[in-house]
């Protein structure tokens, strides 16, 4: 007999791992990715590939040459960040902007804080907001689904030909709302929103695909219902109140939920384990804050879309929420000691 090993209990493990969690989240995004590719064709594939490769590269490079730690590339978290960032930009975004977004996401929002687990803000959203502020034109130029994606892919936006642009791009429903008010969206077709036939970032267009992935994550117990439900419900109720007050100025609540990044944000971005609260009550508050800020920005802010900002703002409150909302302790009814 070889020497025996000793260690403290427990001696068995439930076999859950960071790799598995990240892989399952990537898998849950598959329906959304497929819809994106179906609607935007090669443009979507291009964006996804560039984003994944750059994120993984930056993570590997920084780990190896700057932090000099064991590579964390194999945990799939960089790949997930790449996918999420890609899903949050238009399919027409030039390649170098995607690379810049990935650099900000991985190098600044994640690795500078100490890598996976230590970041305060959702890396993909930091990358996205950085791009939105730095390149507002390209980030809000939305190719219409099915509109000659091939043309966009080959010409790109390096040489912006206004004719091509007008032919294949259009505003998002939220953009229409921002510019034209509630009247402008009256002709909108909710069935199209549900299926994903609207302008927008490549991953935020199909509510049903996102919902499928979200249900998978709930079933696998990777996320709990608290954040998505309170996020969506708060948005719905708050938008509903505004709509009842002035239906000519504000959009109806269903419109708010089905358009923009709300579904993607509620199921895949706000639920990021690292940057969301630890207890169910904290999660409910977090989701509530996200929903409230989203609708505030959409209804009264300068930007047509507010999901990214809302989640990032609430990310900043997470340490405070974790301090304020403790789990229910066994046997705490009677005073201690």
């Amino acid at each position, binding site marked *: 007999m070889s020497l025996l090993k000793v260690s403290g209990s*427990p001696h068995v493990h439930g076999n859950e791992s*960071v790799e598995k969690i990240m892989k399952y989240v990537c898998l849950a995004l598959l329906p959304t990715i497929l819809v994106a590719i179906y609607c935007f064709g090669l443009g979507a594939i291009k964006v996804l590939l560039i984003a994944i490769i750059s994120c993984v590269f930056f993570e590997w490079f920084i780990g190896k040459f700057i932090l000099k730690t064991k590579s964390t590339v194999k945990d799939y978290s960089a790949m997930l960040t790449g996918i999420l960032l890609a899903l949050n930009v238009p399919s027409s975004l030039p390649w170098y902007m995607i690379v810049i977004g990935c650099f900000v996401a991985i190098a600044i929002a994640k690795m500078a804080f100490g890598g996976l687990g230590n970041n305060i803000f959702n890396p993909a959203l930091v990358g996205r907001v950085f791009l939105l502020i730095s390149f507002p034109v390209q980030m809000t130029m939305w190719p219409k689904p099915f509109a000659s994606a091939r043309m966009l892919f080959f010409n790109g936006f390096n040489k912006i030909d206004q004719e091509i642009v007008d032919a294949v791009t259009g505003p998002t429903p939220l953009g229409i709302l921002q510019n034209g008010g509630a009247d402008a969206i009256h002709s909108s077709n909710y069935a199209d929103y549900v299926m994903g036939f609207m302008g927008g970032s490549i991953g935020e267009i199909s509510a049903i695909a996102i919902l499928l992935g979200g249900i998978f994550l709930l079933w696998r117990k990777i996320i709990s219902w608290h954040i998505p439900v309170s996020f969506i419900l708060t948005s719905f109720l708050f938008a509903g109140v505004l709509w009842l007050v002035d239906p000519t100025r504000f959009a109806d609540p269903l419109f708010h939920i089905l358009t923009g990044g709300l579904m993607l944000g509620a199921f895949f971005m706000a639920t990021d384990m690292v940057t969301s609260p630890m207890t169910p009550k904290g999660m409910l508050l977090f989701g509530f804050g996200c929903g409230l800020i989203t609708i505030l920005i959409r209804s009264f802010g300068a930007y047509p879309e507010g999901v990214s900002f809302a989640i990032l703002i609430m990310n900043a409150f997470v340490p405070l929420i974790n301090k304020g909302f403790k789990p229910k302790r066994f046997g*705490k009814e009677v005073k201690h000691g």
Partner: protein
Amino acid sequence: MKTFKLGGVHPEENKLSSGSAIEIFPVPEKVYISLSQHLGAPAVPIVAKGDKVKTGDLIAKGEAFISANIHSSVSGTVEKIDEWIDTGGYKVPHVIINVEGDEWNDSIDRSTELVKDIKLTSEEIIQKIKEMGVVGLGGAAFPTHVKFMIPEGKKADSLIINAVECEPYLTSDHRLMLERPNELLIGTQILMKALKVEKAYIGIENNKKDAIELLSSLNYSGIEIVPLKVKYPQGAEKQLIKAVLGREVPSGKLPIDIGCVVNNSGSTFATYEAVQKNKPLFERVVTVTGKTVGHPSNFLVRIGTPIGALLKEVEVNMDEIGKIISGGPMMGKAIISSDVPVSKGTSGVLLMHENESHRGEVRNCIRCAKCVEACPMGLEPYLIAAVAKNELWDEAEKAYVMDCMECGCCQFTCPSYRPLVDYLRVGKRNVGQIIRNRAK
């Protein structure tokens, strides 16, 4: 079906030996009987080198308040009283006896006839339990008589027998219930009388349906069989009370503070033998199991038998074994050598293959909150581990580290394979020291 509400996990049950009837394990050539097999002060030896002893003779007295008597498990000659490795990995004094035959102390009733009539009074029962060295057989080995001496001003209304056996792999309680159900139930009645209560509950997890059926079919007044949904750590005292009665033991208090006493089913059987048969606790049922074990077994073993002797009887290739666990995989102790003897607290011996004996690579905490969700005490293991790692004992105390019972649910669920329980133990030891110093 009843269970506790907060936290908990469901590890693979792996009750490989549940179909193996209890076999009487042969008396070894030499036994090593530890003087501190129980929680509390070590017992004081009353034999010396060269003394002849019979099976069941008292060899060491538990003199402190929390301590227990120790009896010889064999007949023979005391070779020496010397240090030997115990389950915890420390060298502690053991009485080492060379076995000669198997001659039992005459006062022990060796017949298998059931004795139903309880003649002793409450006080006499507790005295008898003390005399016979009965301790909790679930693992912690807390002296049973201390549990039943109710402090002034407190009163018990219910007795709960812990037959949950929530640890994966272990089946010793299960087999005992199937093979000696009447003894277990009479033992329960004895303890009810000792405690002066009218009501007892036997909590059994639903993966032992045959035992639930069998015990329910026997008629003993005042005893209710409570089937429980399978969930770890249901065998923990506070969780079991919550599951059976819905009562919650306040933080820092004992079950008696809410009118309950919990006793392990193996100890209840030992109580029957002590009170009705005058038999001291010198043998116990030990499950010897593991995924690569050819014959997972339940043995009735004399205390002091080296664990190595048990391993020879279960068909296992010891070259492939990486870890030997005394107890179950969730809370058992990894022993450092197969020379470690069976003690009163050895509920099982689990052999882990080299491949399953490693811990996973530790990653950063990703704040997934799985540990918070799994903690049956409602603590934040990730936080306590972090403050304990940084030696912030005040913070650890404020995070209620002393409520932790080291059940291992947090570490079991951690996707980053963080050694949470290691840090919690360090935290408990240091905070406990600080609290004791403060009280002085």
